[in-house]
């Protein structure tokens, strides 16, 4: 009878609204992400925070107790690099939009020649100051899609341009904007994309040189500003540089590195730039895992494993390198775990509903389950410096939880619901799959 009452109550408070008072999940299998798994544990939530977790906890009388039989509780999954929550059309970059081909000929028009050299203020495809937190669209349907796949948070970044902008750690509650932002800024997303032969930078080496120059400009800017601040009187004031300001605000740089040579390149580059760095992509990390570990540079791994392009020419031979990457990429997380490197997962181009399957492939290739869980939860929080408030089931942390019937990585298991800031959200049925058509996906390299 009590069971029925609980169920009715649960149904009544299906997706919305704050459950009154404390909530407890009792007698469940609890994977805290730090320390051993509690086979028969209880977690108590109150006021949007985790109040207690353990094998035997005293529960307050007014707690809504949910029976944890047959379910596993995980920390809510965190997508380490995402565009969820941003509007579909990206914000206009400050500089002219990119052209696919070299400038189209305009017969007869006499274009003035480009200035011989662009001055220090020339900042193509750079919007370092743009903050994801300022652009949020709580009605983004991807929020629900992510939640239904077990994600309670994403680290969302603007995605277009070389310096695309600053990210924010979001709770996917999808209601009040202000309540969604857990932390901002979380870092600067850098893409190293080029924009056609006729536009600077038109080559990979051009973009790298450009990023390096901006970094040097930031160093110099700081010196200038500090010197001016000390004795403004009688001094020429330095020009305000919006792009550099945006870079200086960013606690870390996210740099693309998918295959081994890019990882090698970016590890060198990261060491050169004085900014803390995080690399993303990581598919060939299995080749260079020890080096990644030694560098202490965290690596975000794209869960969209390489696959054969959908409309490829069946008569065109693929190179061994391509095949090997396709085969071995899912073993990169295991290699990184073994080497002791710090890494986490992000959904990349993979639809949210396929994330668990993608992680399972990594587990089949040697990644341990606890490491898999950490890569989706606590490691993300640690990489972004937020492990004091989110990412594991520990007292004091934000009540973001994932409740699964069965084991998370078991094909047959089902996601029951998630808690975000202590509020319960049910998964929605699989409506039109929210394919990310026409939207820039983070994680593209080169």
């Amino acid at each position, binding site marked *: 009878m009590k069971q029925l009452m609980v169920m009715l109550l649960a149904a009544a408070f299906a997706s919305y609204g704050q459950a009154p008072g404390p909530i407890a999940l009792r007698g469940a299998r609890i994977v805290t992400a730090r320390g051993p798994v509690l086979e028969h544990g209880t977690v108590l939530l109150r006021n949007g925070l985790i109040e207690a977790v353990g094998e035997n906890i005293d529960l307050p009388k007014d707690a809504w107790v949910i029976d944890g039989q047959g379910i596993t509780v995980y920390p809510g999954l965190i997508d380490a690099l995402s565009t969820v929550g941003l509007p579909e059309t990206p914000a206009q970059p400050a500089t002219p939009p990119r052209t696919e081909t*070299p400038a189209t000929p305009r017969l007869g028009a006499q274009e003035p020649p480009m200035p011989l050299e662009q001055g220090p203020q020339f900042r193509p495809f750079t919007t370092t100051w743009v903050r994801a937190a300022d652009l949020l669209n709580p009605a983004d349907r991807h929020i629900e899609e992510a939640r239904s796949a077990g994600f309670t948070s994403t680290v969302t970044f603007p995605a277009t341009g070389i310096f695309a902008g600053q990210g924010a750690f979001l709770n996917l509650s999808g209601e009040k904007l202000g309540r969604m932002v857990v932390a901002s800024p979380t870092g600067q997303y850098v893409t190293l994309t080029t924009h056609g032969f*006729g536009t600077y930078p038109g*080559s990979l080496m051009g973009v790298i040189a450009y990023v390096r120059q901006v970094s040097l400009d930031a160093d110099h800017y700081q010196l200038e500003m500090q010197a001016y601040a000390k004795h403004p009187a009688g001094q020429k004031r330095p020009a305000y540089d919006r792009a550099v300001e945006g870079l200086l605000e960013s606690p870390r740089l996210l740099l693309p590195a998918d295959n081994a040579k890019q990882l090698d390149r970016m590890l060198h580059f990261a060491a050169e730039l004085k900014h803390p760095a995080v690399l993303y992509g990581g598919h060939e990390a299995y080749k260079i895992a020890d080096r990644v570990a030694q560098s202490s540079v965290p690596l975000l791994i794209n869960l969209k494993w390489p696959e054969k392009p959908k409309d490829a020419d069946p008569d065109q031979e693929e190179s061994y390198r391509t095949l090997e990457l396709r085969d071995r990429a899912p073993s990169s997380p295991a290699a990184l775990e073994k080497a002791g490197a710090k890494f986490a997962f992000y959904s990349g181009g993979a639809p949210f509903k396929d994330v668990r399957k993608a992680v399972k492939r990594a587990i089949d290739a040697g990644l341990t389950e606890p490491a898999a869980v950490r890569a989706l939860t606590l490691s993300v929080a640690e990489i972004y410096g937020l492990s004091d408030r989110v990412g594991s089931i520990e007292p004091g942390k934000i009540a973001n939880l994932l409740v699964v019937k069965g084991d998370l990585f078991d094909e047959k298991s089902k996601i029951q619901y998630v808690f975000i800031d202590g509020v319960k959200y049910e998964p929605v049925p699989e409506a039109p799959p929210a394919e990310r058509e026409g939207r820039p996906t983070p994680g593209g390299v080169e």
Partner: protein
Amino acid sequence: MKRAALFLLALPLVAAGPTTVIRNATVITVTKGTFVGSVLIRDGKIVEAGEKVLVPDGARVIDATGKFVMPGIIDCHSHIAADSINEGAVAVSSMVGIEDVVNPDDPDIYRALAGGVTTANVLHGSANPIGGKCEVMKMRWGKDAAGLKFEGAMPGIKFALGENVKRSGSPGGGFGNSPGLRYPASRMGVEDVIREAFTEARAYQKEWRDYQAKVDRHEQAIPPRRDLKLEPLVEVLEGKRYVHAHCYRADEILMLLRVADDFGFKVRTLQHVLEGYKVAKEIAAHGAGASTFSDWWAYKAEAYDAIPYNAALMVRKGVLVSLNSDSAELMRHLNTEAAKAMKYGGLNETEALSLVTINPAKQLGIENRVGSIEPGKDADLAIFDKHPLSNYAKVDKVFIDGELYFDREKDLEERPGKEARKKALSDKLKQQEKKERKRPESPGEKKGDEPGGAQ
């Protein structure tokens, strides 16, 4: 003997292959004659080359009877092993550099090795009057980007004159009469761009000297903003970076030499320099080297007066000449390209082989390390089964730093295994794909899921 001893003391602790003797071959040293004998390699260096060489205990012996050993070939103009070639959107792109985009996975590295090449000068392309920085690399196939670098080689930068540079700015990027969208669109503009850039570089140099002076006087000062574009140009002015300038027409060659003289620097090499034979006198007087094609011509207007006698003529006039490839394909047979300078212009064997060994080494400032078979130099060697100037010759083995990087026998042996391995992997992936297509959409989500309600 003393020199060898000194070198033994100075040897870096490099893991560079076992002590090796290449025995009983025709040794073409290039600088010290040709003889039938042997070469002793230890710790990555040539220790001895002579008619009678004692084989140390435990040395690996390579029997090269009937074969030919020559110094590893040096290609002074290459674009392999790099993920970018041109930054053509701006007229001056000296801030970019090949060192940032080295691609150690490029199969052309191995293919060059198989043609006897051991060192290549990997250059930025020819899209701008002042291009990006270059890197000298050894073809150490299998190493990472840092491992390919020719340690200690003087850094370089690429300039380009003529048609490629003018058309880069044109709409559609092709040749034609349409006005360029990017300056310059004429040879006059090319000169202007270079002069303007060096004028700026001088000002930048002064800025930093003024700052240094202040520091020396213990005055308060913040350093000037570092400009990555102008820094390499200051290095050129100070003789710390070599200029390799792509050029064709005689007049533009002279233009560049004049500009260099005006700004007080030397052009290290003129690249392609297909009309170099017309102004060989001036090139020799300036002290520039010339790195050219053996016999390409008529593919562009500025190449219409190119002649295969170019290399030989310039050699006769006292220019330091090398033959280059500018092509991953041609790179594979620079030895036979060298023979063309014998046919066209009458160079002798040693002069011809110098064009692809000691001469490019000198042009790149690495002749103390490579370019000939002499004790103390790096053990960068190629073994051919016939005389390298014969079109019937093929490369047997290639050593770099005394390590065997290419072995034709081994390459042939490994082929069936490689094919089998690829087929196995391909089949495995095909099976996986088949399985994927049969599965339901994704685990745990079947049709007809009801929202809400715990089970």
